[in-house]
Structures are given as C-alpha cells and as structure tokens.
C-alpha cells in the first residue's frame, strides 16, 4: 500500500479510536489514573528525517482536533507540539549507527524491539507528563499527578504496541 494512504488510514483510525473508544473508557475508580492518549502515534510514525517545523505544525493541528473533542482548549495541542519537538532530538539516539533509510519511520523491524520500546516509552511519558502538568498547572498533589501520568502512559504504550502489530498484519492484506 502507498505509504501516504497507509498513513491517512492510520491517522483516521487512531483519531476515531481516541475519541470514540478511549474517551468513553469506563473503569470506575481506576478511571482517574487511566486516561491514555494514543492519537500522537501519527507523529511518532512520521519519517525519521521529517522536517521538524512541519511535524510540530502537524502536532498542533491534530492536537487542536483532539482538543475540540475533549473541550480542553489547546492542552493537547501544546503537548503534541512538545512531543514533536522532543522527538526531533530523540530520534538520533535510537537510530542504528549506519545503513538506515532516513525516509522510513521507526518500527520494531527497523530498530529492534528494545530501542522501539524505549522510543515509544519516553515519548509517551513526555506527552502524558506534559499534558497532566499543564492540566493541573499547580504543584498540589504532585505525586498523584505524577502517578497518573506514569500509569496512563504505561497503558497508552501497551495500546500502541498492539496497534503497531495490528498494522503490520494490516499491511499484509
């Protein structure tokens, strides 16, 4: 499948998954800790040497889309822009020394499982920390907020890995 078509399919699917399924997650008391966001995988999936300015703009646009659904006025946009920014510097660390096609994105097959998990884990954590920090915008109940971010990003990471494998299957059809 054409990589751009594939990217658009994944984009639509991920945004739907975010605003239809994950937004309506009902887990009772655990709901407070588990508010995973996964839509930013569309930024993580951009090619390695993608223009950082453009990727921040993409983050802004889709952050605002999610903001519209969540009524959060720019919180997600801010977090997504920050994610794109940090991703730009982090990509260099997970790439192999040589022989990497800079036009392709980071996948398990390209960089190996461990590096992929590190890449996804760190960026998930950055996103959630940024989001929960700006949502609270106070140092009250700091550790509670911190645990909220950690648990949510762990859940988000698990979903992202599932998503990754399901799209590998999807590619085969």
């Amino acid at each position, binding site marked *: 499948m054409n990589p751009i078509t594939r990217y658009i399919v994944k984009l639509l699917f991920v945004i739907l998954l975010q605003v239809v399924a994950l937004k309506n997650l009902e887990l009772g008391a655990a709901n407070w800790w588990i508010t995973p966001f996964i839509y930013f995988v569309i930024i993580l999936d951009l090619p390695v040497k993608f223009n*950082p300015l453009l990727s921040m*703009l993409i983050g802004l646009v889709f*952050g605002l889309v999610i*903001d*519209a659904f969540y009524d959060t*006025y*720019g919180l997600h946009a*801010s977090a997504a822009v*920050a994610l794109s920014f940090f991703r730009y510097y982090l990509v260099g660390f997970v790439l192999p020394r040589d022989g990497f096609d800079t036009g392709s994105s980071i996948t398990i097959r390209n960089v190996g499982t461990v590096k992929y998990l590190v890449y996804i884990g760190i960026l998930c954590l950055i996103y959630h920390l940024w989001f929960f920090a700006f949502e609270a915008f106070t140092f009250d109940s700091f550790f509670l907020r911190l645990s909220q971010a950690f648990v949510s990003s762990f859940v988000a990471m698990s979903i992202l890995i599932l998503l990754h494998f399901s799209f590998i299957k999807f590619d085969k059809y």
Partner: protein
Amino acid sequence: MQNIIRLLQKFQVVLMFCFLQVLCLILVFSGNNAFHRASIASSSNVVVGGFYDLSHSISSYFHLKKENEQLLQENLSQKKQLYGSQIEVGKSFMTINDTIYFQQYNFIKAKVINSSITAPKHNFITINAGEDLKVEPNMGVIGTKGIVGVTIASNDSYSTVTPIINANFVLPIRHATSMTFGRVVWEDDDTYLTATVIDVPSSVAVDVGDLIETRGSAGIFPEGVPVGKVLAVEPVSGQTYQKIKIGLIEDFSAIYNVSVVKNIKKIDQQEIEKQTMELYQQ
C-alpha cells in the same frame, strides 16, 4: 542582517517550538472565559457536535434493553396509582395514623413465556412469576393494553393463566357508557380476537365501539381496566339479556409483558361475603 537570519535559521526549531507553545498556552488560559467556550475549538461546533450525535445514535442501541426495563418499571408504578388502586380508610371517628389512603392493589411484572391462541376450547398462558413472587391462583393478569386473564395454578417460579380466550373463563364486567353489569365469556364461535358478553339487559342501548371494562367486583381486577370494544349486538329470543360480541383490546397473538394484580383486601372481601351467605343458609 545576514547574521541575524543565519541565527534564526540555526535556532529555527527551538524558536518555532516556543512560538507554538505560546500560542497553545494563550489558548489554554483564555479558554476559561465564556467567549472562548463557544468558539470553534470546542465540542459545540458543528463538526464535532455532529460527530457526537452520530456516535450517540449508534451507541444508544446498546442500551435499548436496559431502557425498556426501566420503562416497564415506570409503567408499573404508574399503574399502581391508576385504576383506583387506593381506597380510603380514614373515615372512622378517630384516625391514629394520618394515613388516609391505603394501597389496595399491587402489581408484579412478569413475562409471558408460553401461550396458545388456536386451541378450540382451552387456550392458556404461562408466565415467569410464581410463588417466589407471591403469585397465587386466582389473581388477575393485565397486559399492556387490557386484561389478559386470571392465574389458575402456580409453582415455585411459574404460573399458568386462564386467558379470556378460554372456555372456562368468566368475569364480571361492565358496559362503560351505561355502567351496566354483565359477564364476559368465551364461546365456541369466538376466535382469539373476540369474546362474548352476556347478561347485559336488552333495555340497555349498546352501540358498536363502546368500551367494555372490568367491574372490580370479584376482587381480581381493579375497576375500569379495558377488556374490549363492542363489535356487534345480537338480541337473544326469549331472553331478557342481549348477547354482545366484543373485540379484545389485548392482542393475544403478540403478548410479552404482563403484570399480575394482587388485591391486598381480597381476603377481607371474601370473608364478609362468606359470612353473609352463611346467614342466608341458616
């Protein structure tokens, strides 16, 4: 000038990041006032609102069963208040409690799990409420539109009902327009859509379309529950009553939810009637 541009180019990513962050944070912190709440970046705009409408219209199908259950429950509580199910008890000289009204009829909801409509004489209905729900023989059963029948036997969790469309069924009724009493029976020429009213005097003018309702005298049903509508009136030669064919209000071919009527004062009524009969026999 050259140097400034080169500097900007060198730090373009950081500068862009700062610029976008400031933009976002302005949006975040101005989001608290009412003007921005109504602005385009909220769920009240046409696209997002329309999307939520769509997703709700799909997800609401998953709750239909629960909603139905709730509506049934509500119907039941409404029915309790209707049909004159409350009688006054506070008319004596002294009232100790301030309770003027006393609940006479209670309703238990039940589902029809088996029924027949085509038997020549003895149709029956089975409902899923039995002795565990205090259902006993000789209790009235009301459907969603009108009466269904009277329970005849019950075990732990099921009861059988003699519906109107059974040759053994007899119930005192009244003609709603003239309030004249009669009885409803099911004769050989009746189908599952009809029944026959006898004992209404010939002098009473009965028109096609008049409502026949329960009389409430046997203590089985409350007063005024619909039974049927008059289809045809036939005079019977040599008799003082007329024969009335009625079309049943309850559709016995599609009957699912019923409520069983429990008359709390029934034993009192039976007792006093029995005492009276004994008085005559002496």
